Structures are given as C-alpha cells and as structure tokens.
C-alpha cells in the first residue's frame, strides 16, 4: 500500500483492543437501564443482519422480519415451556424453523417485483399476528405465553443460568459476535459476491451463470433464520411472548436500522442498531416530543446520509489506520 498517503502509525489494532475491552467492561460502566438498551440493540442486530443480507446485499426490500422474529419467539417459548429444552437448542431450533417457514413463503413472494414483494412481506407480519391470535390451542392467543425460563446451559458440573442483566448482556454479546462472524463469512464468501452481483444487476448476473432465483430464496431463508434467532433471544429476555411480537413496528425498526445505518455493510448495521435504539432511548428525556423528534432525526439522516453511515465509518476506520 505504498500509494496511500500516511499520516501516522496504524492504530487499528489498539483501537479494536480498546473497543473489546470496553465491551467486556460495559456492565461496570453502565447502569442496568443503559445495559438493557445495549441488550436491545444487540438483539435487534440479529434480525437486522438478516435484513441486511436481503436488502443490503441482495437488493430485496423486505418488511417480513417481524414475522420471523415472532416465529422465533413462539418456537422458543413453546419448546422451553412444553419440553424444557435447553436454551441453545431453543435458539437454534428457532432459527432453523423460521428459516424453513421462509421457504414456502419466499417461493411465491420472490417472483414478484420490488413493490409487490414489499407488500407481500408486509402481509406475512399481519397474517402472522392473526395466526398467533387465533391458533389458541398452541399459542394461547392473546393470553400469550409467559414465564419463559431464563437461558440455562446444562454443562454437567458447570451448568449455569443466565438471570441477571449483566449475564444477559454477555450472552447477547457472544451471540451477536458469533452472528457477526457468520454474516462476515457469508458476505466474504463467493456467494456473498454473487449476492452483490444480483443486487447490482440481476439479469447481468444471470447471464454469467449466477442462479439468481436460488440465491434469493436461500438468502431469504438465511435472513428469516437470523430474524428467528433474534426473536428467540428476545423472548428469553422478556420472558413473555404475545401476538404483539408480530408487529409492524418491529419490522420498521429493523428497516430503519439497516437502511439508516448503512445497507450492504456490517459496520453500518452495527452502528445503526446502536444509533437508533440509543436515539429512541435518549429521546425519552422529552416524552411528549419523543416520537416527533425521532421522526425528524430519521428525516435528517435520510437526506444528510442517503447511503447510511457506512462511508463515514469507512473514513474513520482509515483515519485510525493512519491513512490520510
């Protein structure tokens, strides 16, 4: 990289070390409310990652994330309550089942063009809520499923249960870190490159042998699986699941995180998740004006940073790296 103008030593490694140390020591730095907000941000990060694979990498705008979030939450709740399965099983089963359910939904939906596809995915949330409300024998309808146990890990003599906010923070952090690694591997793989090709120009990609349709359905399923994981984590955290989990508001929150943060990048979505959850919490200082201010911030971000914060993060990263 001799061509790059340098202005100092590469501080990326120390910077990451500081970040990691900060992440590890957060429970000592923050009160439980702030830590809770961080947990929410980490939880929403999972479905946001899934959505990012869809909209940011493959170019499919979807509002279905809340549906898969809800499916994941119900799967984990039902397993935990009826079969007392360990947390890790619930988590993986939620992701898997959400991913599998995405297949029959995705096959007809993905045939549609952009706007119709968006509406179709919106329908999944609304119909999902109707099912949660009316399939009473399984979901208990509006009564909801409560007392979902805290995550526990039966590891022989080392079994432990995560019950405190701090414990949950570390659990979310580990899950989010694993998810980040998984997403990173996906987008760095040849498949990730093909996804970007489909986003950029589907016909051109197909003319080069890329089976766009298969990729789209696979990415839709992966995205749903991430949504399911997030729902499962959230259900164990809140300990209740009600039809309210199938809520448009969750879908739009995730969309705001991805599109506002920086679609097609991992750092942008992480930033977006903390930014928008943080913004929503910070604005609680003025309860009456909160959502008005949130809407105005959203508008400002859309027009000031139309491509999200990814370019900004990229510049900061290079600057820390010592490039001019």
């Amino acid at each position, binding site marked *: 990289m001799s061509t790059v103008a340098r202005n100092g030593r590469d501080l990326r490694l120390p910077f990451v070390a500081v970040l990691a140390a900060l992440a590890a020591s957060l429970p000592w730095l923050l009160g439980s409310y702030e830590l809770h907000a961080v947990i929410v941000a980490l939880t929403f990060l999972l479905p946001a990652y899934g959505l990012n694979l869809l909209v940011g990498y493959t170019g499919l705008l979807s509002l279905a994330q809340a549906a898969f979030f809800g499916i994941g939450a119900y799967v984990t709740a039902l397993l935990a309550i009826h079969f007392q399965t360990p947390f890790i099983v619930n988590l993986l089963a939620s992701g898997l089942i959400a991913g599998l359910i995405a297949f029959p939904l995705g096959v007809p939906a993905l045939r549609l*063009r952009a706007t119709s596809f968006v509406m179709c995915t919106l329908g999944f949330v*609304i119909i999902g809520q*109707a099912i949660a409300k009316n399939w009473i024998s399984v979901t208990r309808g509006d009564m909801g499923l409560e007392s979902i146990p805290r995550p526990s890990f039966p590891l022989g003599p080392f079994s432990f249960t995560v019950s405190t906010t701090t414990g949950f923070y570390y659990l979310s952090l580990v899950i989010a870190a694993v998810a980040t690694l998984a997403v990173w591997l996906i987008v760095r793989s040849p498949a990730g490159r093909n996804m970007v090709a489909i986003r950029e120009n589907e016909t051109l990609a197909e003319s080069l042998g890329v089976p766009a349709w298969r990729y789209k359905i696979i990415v839709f399923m992966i995205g749903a699986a991430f949504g399911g994981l997030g729902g499962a984590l959230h259900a164990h955290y809140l300990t209740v699941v009600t039809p309210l989990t199938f809520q448009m508001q969750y879908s739009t929150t995730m969309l705001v995180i991805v599109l506002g943060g920086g679609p097609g990048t991992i750092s942008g979505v992480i930033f977006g998740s903390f930014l928008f959850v943080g913004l929503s919490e910070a604005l609680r200082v003025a309860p009456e004006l909160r959502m008005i201010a949130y*809407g105005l911030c959203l508008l400002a971000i859309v027009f000031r940073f139309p491509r999200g914060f990814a370019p900004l993060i990229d510049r900061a990263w290079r600057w820390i790296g010592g490039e001019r």
Partner: protein
Amino acid sequence: MFWTLVEQVLNGIVSGSVYAIVAVGMTMIFGVLRAINFAHGEYYMLGAFGAWVAVEYIDLPYPAAVVIGILVTALIALAVGWLIMQRIVGATAETGVLATLGVALVLQNAVIFIFGGSYKYFNGGYIEPVTIFGFMLAEQRVLIIIVCVLVFLALEAMVKLTWAGKAMRAVSQNPLCCEVVGIDVGKVVLQTFALGACLAALSGALTAPVNVTVYGGMGEIITFKTLPIIIMGGLGNVRGTFFAAMILGVAESLVATYIGLQYRDTVGFATLMLVLMWRPHGLFSTRARF
C-alpha cells in the same frame, strides 16, 4: 340467504368506497414518485382532525368543516411535499420508505402532542339511517358512495382533459422525458402529492361522522388497508384502484360474515398474495397509468 349476500356485498361497496378515495391518492403519488407513501393514512387522519377542530373549536357546520379539513391538510401536504417529497424524486426506493416513515411519525405524534392522544368524539354529519332498496344505511354513507363516484369521474376527466392531468400522466410514465420537453417535474410531483393528500383528507372528513371517534394514531390502520389495494389495482392505475378497493371491501365484508371478523384485517393481504400468485403484476395493468 341470497338477500344476506346482496346486503353484505352492498356493505362491502360502502367500505370499498372509503378505501377507494384514500387509495387513489396514494396510487397517483406512487405513479409520479415511485415511492410507497407510508404516511398516506396520516393525511386521512389530518382531514378528519381538521374537520373535528372546525366543529369543536370554531362551531362550524359540517360541510364547512369538511372544507376546513381538506384545506388544512392541503397546506400541510404542500409543506411536506416541498420540503421532503420533491427530494424523493429519482432517489432510491429505500430513501422513499425511510422518509415517508419519518413523515408519518412526525405528523401522527405532532397531532397527539397538540391535541392530546385521547380519542375525540366527532359531532356532525348526516348519520340518520335511510332505507334504499330495502337496505338501511346512514345518509352519510350514501354521500360517501356518491362522492367516491364523483371523485373517480373527475379524476378520469382531469387526467384526460386538463393540462395538469396530462402532465401527471406524463411524469408517471417517464420523468426523464418530461424534463426534456419542459414539464417541471418537481411542480407536478408537488401538485400530485397535494391532490393525493387532499383526497385522503376528504375520505377522512367524510367518514369521521360514521366512525364517531377520531384520534392521532388513526391513520396507520388506513395506510395498511390501502397498501394491498394499490398493488392489486396495478400501481399508478386509477381505474384499477377503484375496482381493487371494491373487491377488497366486498371480500372483507364476506369474510366478516362467513368466517369471522377477527380475520378481516388479513383479508387484504391474503387476497393480495393470492392475486399475485395468479397474476404477479396485479389484477390491472400497471401500464395503463391514470
């Protein structure tokens, strides 16, 4: 049995008329902007609220209140259109989604902030029932059906006969060419947007008497009802939207009768999905815009 069916179809047409007036504005806005307007229901809410303020605070008679509701909405829509919607022209779909979501949040919660979030009772309108062909319905509903038909006739005439209408049609077909031939796209977008918002406001002000209560958050449900209609109607297609709204109204009515009211809100999206599986581009052509 047969008369039940006839009555339920009529009920469907009544609610379809309400949807149609809101949806046609949204579909026209989509035509020129290529953006789904997630804030469209908020203009319906503004229309109803404007009328409520006129009745409650200024003691105006109902017809004047309707006019006030539309005027207030028009002013707000012009401001929003000038500040925000014009910037969406040519931007990505993502920008449109985020921006309109932001507008929805601001409008909805601004009304809640100013008037309080509680529901208000709407006094006014023509709510006495009349009997037509053996069916009873409120006079106001008859009015809604008539207004709906008039609105669609007027729109058809406008896009065919007036210069402004032709410009709208042109922009919805190809904004780039319009720039070339000297049509001010920004102006057309603003006009169309304001017109669409006013139609939503008209629907809101007209239905307020039969819906009795109005509140700041009432727009959202309308937005979600309208979305499947404009897709089924063929995005940007005025006539298609009319029929799609009627189909949805009737389908909802029949589902409420024969299956259960609790499934009513899923009807729109379920119908939409079935229709799209059968015809991926909607029931009506998207080419025949306006």
